[in-house]
């Protein structure tokens, strides 16, 4: 294992200290591993809390700041945080207008956020609403699975719901916006390599030099199928076409197109992919209204990418364009 780390047991704590040093505008509660926007709680504003296993950086801590999240909880690598962290985050950002939990659809995340919400309700009475993100079309949403995973759409939900909260909208409305984003967004990912969890020390799965995994999540799980490596245009087809099959993206105000790097894929390749994706969308009569290209929700040192499409309307575009001031996403401020 070749990594820029000290003891694997210290990775998250070391990285949080680095984040705190690099971003003095954020507050970091090292004991609870919670990153909080510096001016939280913002009086009268709905607080947005998310969190999940670490290893997806910049998600979630890199999206803490005005116009996006109020707090993020960092779990162990690929392991949901524990309820104590979520309770601490919720209390830190409660500005009197309630708190929205943005939860990616993994059994662990769901249950831990559920326990946290129960604890907050019992303890303190902050109003908490949870929204579950489940946009990964690689997983069938059926009785026979834990449901679709929450992947790329999480970034879009956090940005757009964050903008709605910043406008002072009430909790129920902010939650509705978050649900709307989730219901209009679909994603699909692909790995060229596995990733290596620091504590494990070797790649989670073996992938021969001439094979890739299609339909992966963000936790180093193998994908739905293994296929021979292919050129970017074929890869784009493998990712985009199940997305377009799953939801009708025509007839709106175009899409927000998001090509995400998995952690070890350089930007030049992501732009190559973005070019292929836009060409496929054009062929399908779907205009690209906005775009996002870069490593925003990663899987440690996995090479690969994911594509997320969000069917946009005027409201979503306005919220997407709204100012945001976080370490990993900044505009208009």
């Amino acid at each position: 294992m070749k990594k820029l780390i000290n003891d694997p047991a210290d990775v998250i704590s070391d990285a949080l200290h680095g984040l705190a040093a690099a971003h003095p505008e954020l507050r970091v509660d090292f004991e609870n591993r919670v990153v909080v926007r510096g001016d939280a709680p913002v009086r009268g504003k709905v607080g947005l809390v998310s969190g999940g296993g670490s290893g997806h950086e910049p998600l979630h801590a890199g999206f803490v700041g005005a116009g996006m999240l109020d707090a993020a909880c960092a779990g162990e690598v690929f392991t949901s945080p524990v309820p104590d962290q979520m309770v601490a985050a919720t209390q830190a950002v409660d500005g009197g207008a309630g708190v929205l939990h943005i939860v990616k659809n993994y059994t662990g995340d769901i249950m831990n956020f559920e326990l946290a919400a129960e604890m907050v309700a019992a303890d303190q009475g902050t109003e908490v609403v949870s929204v579950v993100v489940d946009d990964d079309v690689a997983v069938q949403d059926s009785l026979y699975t834990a449901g679709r995973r929450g992947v790329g759409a999480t970034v879009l939900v956090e940005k757009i719901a964050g903008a709605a909260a910043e406008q002072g909208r009430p909790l129920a409305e902010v939650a509705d916006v978050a649900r709307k984003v989730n219901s209009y967004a679909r994603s699909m990912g692909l790995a060229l390599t596995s990733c290596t969890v620091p504590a494990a020390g070797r790649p989670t799965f073996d992938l021969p030099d001439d094979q890739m995994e299609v339909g992966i999540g963000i936790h180093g799980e193998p994908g739905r199928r293994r296929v021979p490596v292919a050129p970017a245009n074929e890869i784009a087809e493998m990712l985009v076409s199940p997305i377009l099959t799953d939801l009708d993206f025509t007839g709106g105000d175009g899409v927000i197109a998001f090509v995400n790097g998995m952690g070890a894929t350089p930007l030049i390749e992501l732009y190559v992919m973005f070019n292929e994706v836009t060409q496929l969308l054009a062929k399908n009569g779907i205009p690209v209204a906005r775009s996002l290209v870069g490593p925003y929700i990663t899987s440690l040192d996995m090479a690969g990418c994911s594509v997320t499409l969000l069917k946009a309307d005027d409201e979503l575009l306005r919220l997407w364009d709204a100012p945001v001031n976080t370490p990993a996403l900044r505009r208009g401020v």
Partner: protein
Amino acid sequence: MDATALTAWLREFARLVAENKDELTALDSAIGDGDHGVNMDRGLTAVVAALDAEPPETPSALFKKVGMTLISKVGGASGPLYGTAFLRMSAAADAELDGPGFAKVLRAGLDGVVARGKAAPGDKTMIDALAPAVDALDAAFASGAGLADAFSAASEAAARGREATVPLVARKGRASYLGERSAGHPDPGATSVTLLMRAAASTLGAAG
């Protein structure tokens, strides 16, 4: 069985998990995300530390401390599931437990896992080891078995239940994302449950 005996059980569980940490993680790498061993070990190390710091005096207090500690330290899916199990066991536990009393408590734990995780038998989860173990305990005590036989039957039932998860296609947890590809591997959580029951056999069973 008093708090001391039950504490010995959980210490032994912690020891077995530490010993089998890498195997649990390897199993979870095959069909999950490769952290089950690390997760359980982190939680049980904290449990042992908590028990060292302040030994609980009743089974109920013990289970509560174990459940709270697991919820606070494990995370992932196994933290809330094991944690809820022990919290439910705490609620169901009398001051002293005989064999059937323990079986009742363990069933309350199983019910907690089902309530929290909404999995059914055959979904390829820890339930597939825990449910047969509880059933075996009940059956053994119903037929008048002693603690040693009952716990060893439960341990064997857990192990058989765990083996039976191998061909299954997972329907809950991360392994379900793999669809058909999840078949051919044992479930990590069911494997850690076999350690829980093996620990019970060698501590609670031996005490009988």
